[in-house]
């Protein structure tokens, strides 16, 4: 009987400990495998037939994190583009700070035409403040209208 009581007490203790272990992580929680999967580099289109470009880069219409300081700290949740009422293109991207610390980052966008050539000067760096484990939205508008077909967003830590 005494053994039974002790076993029951032990079980109760383990249960209590297990309850304490359920610490809720502050959202969002970033999967590092998912972050790596976001960085699938592609070769540029061949400049001449059968002569593939030696340069690998992020595919167009994506966000490229170009800074080692933040490459494993940010998660690009979404990136999309839409036409504004004047025909320019507005790129919108939601970026998540996966760390427990505030981050200051900045982004800029290069817009491209149908031939994947730059259609206008690259935009100026735009700052974005991200509190710990929060997201913020980067957006940029093009100068051109119909000639804009693609875009590329670059993100780095604010300097």
């Amino acid at each position, binding site marked *: 009987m005494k053994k039974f009581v002790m076993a029951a007490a032990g079980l109760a203790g383990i249960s209590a400990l297990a309850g304490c272990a359920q610490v809720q992580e502050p959202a969002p929680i970033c999967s590092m495998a998912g972050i790596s999967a976001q960085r699938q580099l592609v070769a540029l289109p061949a400049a001449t037939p059968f002569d593939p470009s030696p340069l690998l880069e992020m595919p167009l219409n994506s966000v490229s994190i170009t800074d080692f300081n933040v490459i494993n700290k940010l998660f690009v949740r979404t990136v999309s583009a839409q036409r*504004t*009422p*004047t*025909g*320019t293109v*507005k790129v919108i991207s939601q970026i998540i700070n996966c760390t427990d610390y505030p981050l200051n980052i900045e982004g800029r966008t290069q817009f491209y035409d149908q031939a994947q050539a730059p259609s*206008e000067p690259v*935009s*100026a*760096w*735009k*700052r974005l403040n991200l509190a710990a484990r929060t997201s913020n939205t980067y957006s*940029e*508008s*093009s*100068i051109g209208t119909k000639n804009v077909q693609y875009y590329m967003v670059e993100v780095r830590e604010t*300097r």
Partner: protein
Amino acid sequence: MRRLMIVASAGLLLSACQTVQNSAGAPTTYQDPATLGAVKGVGIESQDIVSMTDQMMRDMLTEPRLANAATAPNVIIDAEYFVNESSSRINRNSITDRLRVSLQRASQGRLNFVGRHYANMVQSERNLKRQGVVDKGTTGTAAAQRGGDYRLGGRITSLDARDPRTGMMSRYTQIIFEMADLESGDIVWSGIYEFSKAGADDVIYR
């Protein structure tokens, strides 16, 4: 005579020690004006001017009343109504000039720019033409200088704070841009650029 010879010899020896310091000084280097430079404080700096004018220019081109009108509106962009009430020392023209130039180059006819800051220059030439002092040129005459449909206004304000124990200073700067209809007074477009900086470096802006 002997004493004079000794003094002269000593002088010659000393002058021989005075060699040229034949080395390069600290070189002046070009910096990217769109990025934080080597000298940085809490005021408005080149990267802020580049960033804010680029943002405002791109945003103005998304406003249909400005960039998608049936007839390109006449806009005036200068520093006449762009006031600085902040504690930052800055030439307001460096902001409005860059905005006007970048917007004109980007708009490609979607907006028509009136150089009101050149009004005196234009009037002087018009007077000379009409007095017959000079000929009429090749582009023809106009009944009057062009009136503006919209004009840029704005304000720079700031909020300073200093920790007397550490000497750390912070400054919040807010810059607003507004485009006003010159007939109705309606504000047809507005934009805001703001930042807060903190630092302990003793930087002087001129």
